[in-house]
């Protein structure tokens, strides 16, 4: 149906310890059920439990659908970056090169 993967990272001392959404995906047949929101909620819960200060994620600027969804969930654009992800052989992955929004949500 769908999955979410995340990690906790950042310096505790600099109050940068936070949850990060690595990947989020919902299969087309299971859209419009609020699953993405539910999955994000679970990740936010875990991040909070682990003492994170906020949650952040990268979204391609051109991915309108995702951008709108995160905005609706209360996330806001923190910065815009040019990034590339590296493939397993540590070389830049062509497909993941581009302009990304960094969205973030402060945890209570």
């Amino acid at each position, binding site marked *: 149906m769908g999955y979410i993967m995340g990690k906790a990272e950042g310096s505790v001392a600099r109050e940068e310890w936070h949850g990060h959404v690595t990947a989020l995906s919902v299969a087309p*047949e299971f*859209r419009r059920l609020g699953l993405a929101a539910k999955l994000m909620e679970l990740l936010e819960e875990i991040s909070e439990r682990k003492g994170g200060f906020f949650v952040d994620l990268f979204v391609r600027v051109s991915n309108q659908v995702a951008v709108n969804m995160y905005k609706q969930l209360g996330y806001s654009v923190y910065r815009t970056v040019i990034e590339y992800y590296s493939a*397993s052989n540590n070389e830049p992955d062509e497909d993941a090169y581009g302009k990304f929004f960094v969205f973030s949500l402060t945890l209570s």
Partner: protein
Amino acid sequence: MAELVMKLYEAAVKKVPNSEEYHSHLFMAYARVGEYKKMQQAGMALYKIVPKNPYYFWSVMSLVMQAISAQDEKLSKTMFLPLAERMVEKMVKEDKIEAEAEVQLYFMILERLGKYTEALEVVRGKLGEKLTSEVQSRENKCMSLYRKLDQWPECNALSRKLLLKNPDDWQFYLSYFDSVFHLIDEAWSPPEQGEHCTEGHVDSAVDQAIKFVEDRIAGEDSKDSRHLRGPYLARLELIKRLRQRSSSEERELGNPLDLMFEYFVKFGDKPCCITDLRIFVDLLEPDQYVQFINRLTETVPLSTQAEDALAQPADIKSLQRHLCVVQLSRLLGMHHSLDTEHKLHLIEELKARYLYGLKFGKSCLKTELQFSDMYCLLAAHVLVDFWKETGEERHLWQCLGLLEEGLSNSPSNAQFKLLLIIIYCRLGAFEPIVDLYSSLDAKHIQHDTIGYLVTRYAEPLGQFAAASQSCNFSLRFFHSNQKDTSEYIIQAYKYGAFEKIPEFIAFRNRLNNSLHFAQVRVERMLLDLFLEANILSSLEENVRSMGLCPEEDDIPWKEMQDNRDLTVLVSWDPKSRQLSEEDRWLSLEEEILWLRIRSLTLRLIATLATPSHPVEPKNSEKAAENGVASKNDTLHELLRQLEVALEGGKRFVERKVQYHFLGPPSTRLTSAFASGSCQCQASAFRLVVDVHDLDISGLDDTTEVQERLGNSFKDLIVQLKDIRNKCESDLFEIRDGQNKTKPAALENLVFFTETVCIILWVSSYCSCILRPLKSNLQKKKKKKKDANTPTPAIFTNYQEYISALQLLISEVLDHIKGLETNLTALKLDSLSLEDHTLSEAEKKFKKMVREKVQSSYQRSLQEMAELLKKRLDTVKGLKI
């Protein structure tokens, strides 16, 4: 390479025994190759230098890995695991447990030891509080332990609690129901006083389960916010289970038809409604189907714009509802029971709805699917049904045009692409698949799960270049798997993700043992040989550079894993037409049979690659020493295995197994036998035995062998001609304005080409043996000035055979040229054909599809002609 790194760091720690860094690297070096015992020691050595928990637990994990990989299970249970357990217990006693991963590791050990009660204590106790990284990690672990311990009261109580918290968590409805029925069967009843169990309240009777479900539903009904699907589906699930137990209480929950109707009313506008309801259609009686569909249809708001026009939905939600009803009616078999006229009508209706629905998706991005796409796919499925029933190819062509049109409006629709791939291949056209598969952007594990759709057809349809490429995609993934997995495992140690380590290893094994991997390995080597051996480089060079050893069988037959995703294509066919377990088994059986034949063929070809042998054949005793004799043994053994494999293949073919259209593709077994190529190739290999005899024993004592050989040569030509005859027909015709293909003719041409290659290699071996025999004989004759002794017939037989081969191959080349000419002529012809009943779009896609297929045929013919021409050129070198 990995061994060198190990040696490097072993030396380093000897030199600098207190270096934490060197010891860490050493540990990782061992981890890369899975030297578990050494890892265990390295971990403890590290801990002694710096008493950090991770190092200690690396050692513990290494013990667990020794347990998992031990051949002797008893050793795992009595030595490795208990030792690991004691190591962890020590830390627990000293209150030194820090990380979540350490608790997970402790849990893993106890579970593997079967110490479920102890594991439960850990999870439910203080240590369990550390399990935070996965949602409901503790609850899930508890649940699985309760099941293993048959503690159904606890299982039920926990499920109940979790469902109260989240009534949408389906897995807990399943465990709730499982446990209730276990408790009923055990005649369990709660104690008079006090808690039902440690987890709380238990439901142990049907009426309690019914009440529980109905309360959840009431909870949803009363909400203003989004209603969860779980409770409503749980009600249907409960009915299903009660029915399985022939329990009359199912009636208390309601009538399935009404309940499913209500579900549709609530959730019918969601795409998941069909996948939800299809699980429960068996709850309906066949005589209820029509009533059910009618009731659903009545609730879908459709309106007509004009007289006689089709009533259409006014918005996306209504469209989705209507789509769901159509999918359900197909699922209930209502499409299949239509007569021809109504089927045609249905197809037109679905097409019209598809086109109408495009207006809702005008603002969709290229990466999104159109809302009405499924109408298009449904129409395609009905067209395929039609083709299956009538055998009339025009339905498949119409289907292709429709799918291409759909794809042009919805470039990300994978289902369109997958179905197009299947149909094009059915018609013998592989060329369009290259772009289609590439646009699917299949990555990583998908090469294993859906790669078969492509590799099954590339080479068999004569597209050798594309075949090489598609094999490469898969092979690159499988080979990188080994390397990548080692890195994942290292990362897992670094970050303490111990639970993942056995998972990674199991994953790696699953890929190493993959059926698809074995197939692609074998086919890639065969392909390389077909294309290059004795053309650019000798057979010997090719075999050597591949590292091919005829004595070795590197295919893991016993551990073979079928990782194919056979249900990747969506289907709303009724159950009787769906993929069954039996289909899966039959398909796997077939694939393994064919793989065995191909693998043996490859190894037999490798036996033909002889290094230069002694010229003096008379030294039979000397020749019988290791080198030559064992080669002979290998040849005999492989031939014997091939006979057995062919026998197995023949028996399978006789069963005439057929799969559903969207089911697994058949292997080439049936067509290979039908073409005669299997038998012909076997004959060619058998011939080698006799030539080998000739090699060992010379001309004098081998009259029988020579006679047999002479006949074998003649017979081989007959068999090859037989295959040629099956390639006779035209690939593509246009009759009465309709396209007619004959993909079998193309497949047989490929079989012919493959067989020719093998025969030529066998012949090359023959010529290597016969040429020196002939020249020796001629020398002897010259010396003895003896012109009277007759030249053994074998030489003439062989020469005639080579000439016949040459002639046959050039005849086939001419035939291919003829086929190419016919195709080109057709192209020009068809430009003038116009069908006035079609729309502009339909005409455009009809033309596109025909051109794609024709172009593909031309390419296949071209590639085969090129290869056969090169092979023909090598024939003159075979004359002696």
